[in-house]
């Protein structure tokens, strides 16, 4: 009897301290791949969230409450993301979770998030995150299917009808391959070659030689992330493959041009406006948003901006916007408000969400770029 009294008292005190802390700070939880193979995605995401939380607090916080970032690094291991999600939900008692840098981590985290009824902004790229729609999960990164479709549209414009595909065996490449194969028929594009390479391969000339020997191929699409596509690009130049080359949005960073050098000349790819902020037209609503983010990011981190940091920015701002519209941090209300996001201008494009669309971006979010004289040049 005595012991139950005691534990009840302890629980009451604990509840009070938790309640007291909550009144002061709203907590933004994050599980990101800050180290490990996906670090080039997770690192800018983490830095961006840190910067935004500081900015929000400097401007007086959100609904009168200061924000606090609780961020865990899953080391690019999807299995670890799960444990950290549990910690965010049970120990840190956060108000929103941003993360799952990769699709794998996101899908691993979701069952727990759904059970806890927590608004969840995923940064992963896979279509599976929003198809079918999951009640508590939203997505900000462009679908790989949109990238494939943008490439097909560009091919139609140039009168190209058949495509050789070479994709990475990573999660990103495999998903891109699947979507490319699935949507090609809709645009009357024939996939005449379907090769793969490993993310850490140092030479891809064998696969490219096969493609070069394929008379039917009229264009070449590379679907991969990181340094792999740069090696493919260099090998294409080495072999003298004359096909028009497309890359996916996975290489949308300065590093790709730097690593590929002259071989990247003439390569086309779909990517968000943030890739070349100075080339956004003046009347474009994205102009100010993107330029402001790029400048703030440069000042705060002294590093080059990337589309991936932009995704974290969009995720955070959509949540902030929803909290403001809901007028509360109440999770169910915020979730509904996120779902009603309309005309939100982010670095990734204009977001119009609905009960059936938890991404809210259409193909206009992607612009088509070509690399000219070692610089991104926006085509349309």
């Amino acid at each position, binding site marked *: 009897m005595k012991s139950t009294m005691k534990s009840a008292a302890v629980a009451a005190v604990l509840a009070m301290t938790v309640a007291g802390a909550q009144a002061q700070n709203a907590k933004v939880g994050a599980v990101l791949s800050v180290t490990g*193979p996906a670090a080039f995605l997770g690192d800018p995401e983490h830095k961006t969230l840190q910067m935004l939380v500081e900015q929000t607090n400097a401007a007086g916080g959100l609904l009168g409450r200061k924000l606090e970032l609780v961020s865990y690094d899953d080391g690019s291991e999807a299995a670890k993301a799960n444990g950290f999600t549990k910690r965010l939900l049970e120990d840190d008692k956060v108000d929103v979770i941003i993360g799952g840098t990769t699709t794998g981590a996101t899908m691993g985290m979701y069952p727990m998030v759904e059970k806890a009824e927590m608004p969840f902004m995923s940064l992963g790229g896979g279509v599976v995150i929003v198809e079918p729609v999951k009640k508590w999960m939203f997505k900000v990164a462009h679908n790989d299917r949109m990238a494939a479709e943008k490439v097909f549209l560009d091919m139609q414009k140039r009168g190209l009808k058949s495509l050789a595909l070479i994709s990475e065996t990573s999660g990103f490449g495999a998903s891109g391959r699947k979507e490319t194969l699935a949507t090609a028929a809709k645009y009357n594009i024939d996939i005449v070659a379907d090769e793969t390479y490993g993310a850490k391969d140092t030479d891809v000339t064998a*696969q490219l030689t096969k493609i070069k020997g394929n008379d039917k191929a009229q264009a070449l699409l590379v679907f991969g992330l*990181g340094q792999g596509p740069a090696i493919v690009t*260099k090998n294409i130049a080495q072999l003298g493959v004359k096909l028009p080359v497309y890359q996916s949005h996975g290489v949308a960073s300065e590093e790709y041009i730097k690593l590929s050098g002259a071989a990247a000349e003439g390569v086309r790819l779909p990517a968000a406006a943030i890739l070349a902020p100075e080339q956004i037209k003046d009347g474009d609503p994205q102009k100010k948003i993107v330029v402001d983010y790029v400048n703030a990011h440069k000042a705060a981190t002294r590093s080059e901006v990337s589309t991936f940091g932009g995704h974290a920015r969009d995720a955070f701002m959509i949540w902030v916007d929803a909290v403001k519209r809901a007028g509360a941090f109440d999770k169910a209300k915020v979730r509904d408000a996120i779902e009603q996001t309309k005309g939100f201008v982010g670095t990734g494009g204009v977001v119009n969400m609905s009960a059936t669309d938890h991404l809210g971006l259409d193909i206009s979010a992607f612009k088509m770029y070509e690399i000219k004289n070692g610089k991104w040049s926006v085509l349309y």
Partner: protein
Amino acid sequence: MLSQFLQFVFSGVTVGATYALAALGFSIIYNASGVINFAQGEFIMLGGMAAVFLTTAGLPLPLAILIGVLLVGLVGLLVERLAVAPARNAEVVSIIIITIGVSMILRGLVEVTLGKGNHALPHFSGDRPITLGGATILPQSLWVLGVSAVVVAFLAWFFGATRTGKGMLATAYNRLAAQLVGVDTRKVLMLSFVMSAMLGAVGGILIAPIATTSYDAGIMLGLKGFVAATLGGLGSGFGSIFGGLVLGLFEALTAGYVSSAYKDAVPFVLVLIILLVRPQGLFGAKQTDRV
């Protein structure tokens, strides 16, 4: 058809030469101590990264390469002194585990200090491919092959004709007997680490223009190098080179004629077969334990 085959061979030989260099590093340390040094991949990565950062700091390429190789040699020395030597009397397996730890530390240090980005070195003599019988090969690939050949020749001379080299071989055969005839076996272990670190660095620098480098580039190279070394027979210099080239060729031919999806399974299938049929590797000395 022939030009396609030739292209697969060029591709395989280029990749194979890098595996061979990694395998040689494994063999040197294995010879001196019976230890498989799983930080060998990190030595390769360090060489590439050091050269990249020294050239971006403004040093001319040849000087950056020289300093890079020496620096990594120093790292090899430190690794041996600080991590391996204190555990000299431990079981070989314990030391192997220590080298895995060392590899993680080196990787982490580079990640924190030099960042997570990918980097490329300029090609040593231009990146205009050379056309041969309808297939192309990069001048840099010739550098890789040429320097590998020089390194192998040097090692053959070193182990066959110098007092220190013979001392190292003697230690490999029988540590106690070597000690009895006056070989300083502690120095042998130290030297083997410095040598294989420098060898790894040379390899890392040679392939950096083709393959690019980053803090985690050593994992895959180390793994493939280990497979190549096992294939050729751990401890055999010729076996390492042969194992590396065979591995590279098999990968390229599989990607070319079968399917690129199976390419990465090739090394592991090969090693399984070799371990079943000829556990000592193709050119390894047969281990005999006197009972």
